[in-house]
């Protein structure tokens, strides 16, 4: 079982070596002449203004939470889908119940404006 992951783990090392190698190569090959203006963050050419860590919309948190919930639900479909041919009607009924619960939750979130990006 785990042996099928061994090649993948090995390839991961290859990928990491390439990623770090590219990073390192450009460090070695590129020139290095920093100055104050160069190190400033880019704001369309004018001097950066205001706080750097601005507050951002709470909506992003909401999206993240909804994603957490629905992604777990989505992943729970996978084993069921793979076994669908064996589960047959039993599996269908189980999943119908699951989707019913999920669907009402989804409709509720929709009604409460959870998917509304703008108020």
């Amino acid at each position, binding site marked *: 079982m785990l042996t*099928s*992951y*061994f*090649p*993948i783990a*090995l*390839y*991961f090392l*290859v*990928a*990491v070596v*390439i*990623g770090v190698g*590219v*990073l390192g*190569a*450009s460090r070695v090959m*590129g*020139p*290095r*002449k*920093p100055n104050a203006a*160069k*190190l*400033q*963050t*880019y*704001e*369309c050419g004018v001097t950066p203004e*205001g706080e*750097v860590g*601005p507050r*951002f919309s709470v*909506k*992003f948190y909401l*999206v*993240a939470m*909804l*994603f957490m919930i*629905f*992604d777990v639900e*989505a*992943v729970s*479909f*996978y084993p069921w*889908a*793979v076994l*669908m*041919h064996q*589960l*047959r*009607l039993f599996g*269908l009924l189980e*999943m119908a119940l699951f*989707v019913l619960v999920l*669907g009402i939750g*989804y409709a509720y979130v*929709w009604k409460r404006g959870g*998917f509304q990006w*703008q108020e």
Partner: protein
Amino acid sequence: MAAVIIIVIKGLILAVLLLTAFGVLTLTERKVLGRFQFRPGPNRVGPGGSFQFLADGLKLMLKEEIIPNGADRFVFLLAPTISLVAALFAFAVIPWGPPIHLFGQTIPMEIGGPNVGILFLFAITSLGVYGLILGGWSSQNKYSLLGGLRSSAQIISYELAMGLSVVGVLIAAGSADLNNIVSAQTNLWFIVPQIIGFLIYVVCMVAETNRAPFDLPEAENELVAGYHTEYTGMKFAMFFMAEYINMVTVSSLATTLFLGGWHGPWLPPEIWFIIKVAAFMFFFIWLRATLPRLRYDRLMAFGWKVLLPVALANALATAVWVSVVAR
């Protein structure tokens, strides 16, 4: 030991192929976009501009590395590395041909084929989000932060529908192993019974890779360049590479799941695989040339309110078909 060497060689070949594909794709994109816009595109370096990507690569390699003041240096360097590594790594489970026999060994044409291949692939591609958000956060630049947040929100929103859109395929194939999914399509490509799933997947695939018309994170006119504003030289190129390799990966997955993978008549299977992926790549470029960018709220609403329920309904309909109608 021989097995380890074979894997490493395969891995290196794959990585080189992917990076070459990236180079060729950037050139192709510029050429094709040029044609779309009635101009020749790059045509100075090499015959017909065909060495342009090498020149670009060399130039980026020789550029100065700038880490802006106040940036978190470690995270700043980590972010593009995560993006590139995740992009390269995700391809590991995609079979690009039937197993070949060489020197008395049977060599499968993928790095590894775990029985949860598709889950693995989604897991790794979504790691790429960390690259974007960490890059945006560590730059100490407002626009980068917003760009990173936007792209994360967009990617995770479309990931849901993407995950659900392939459930129909899993039901039809009865396996999450990509090799089994390919062999289940010997007679009939899944694009026929799973056309709705395919369409949802294609939309999500474009959104997942932050490509036009879903390229809001990089909206030049409002966010400068999004999460990679502060990245220069090769670090910028790494994000760029990751984006194009991801395009190849999601296209390959689309091919594997819906277009029968490497199955095809007359030509060798590997060629078929490349042809199908290339068609998707052209589709990406075509979209970019044709469609304007979406507004952000519409983008999110489309993902949550349209794609998600349709994908769910498609999964259920497939299940009903398999368990009630077809038997």
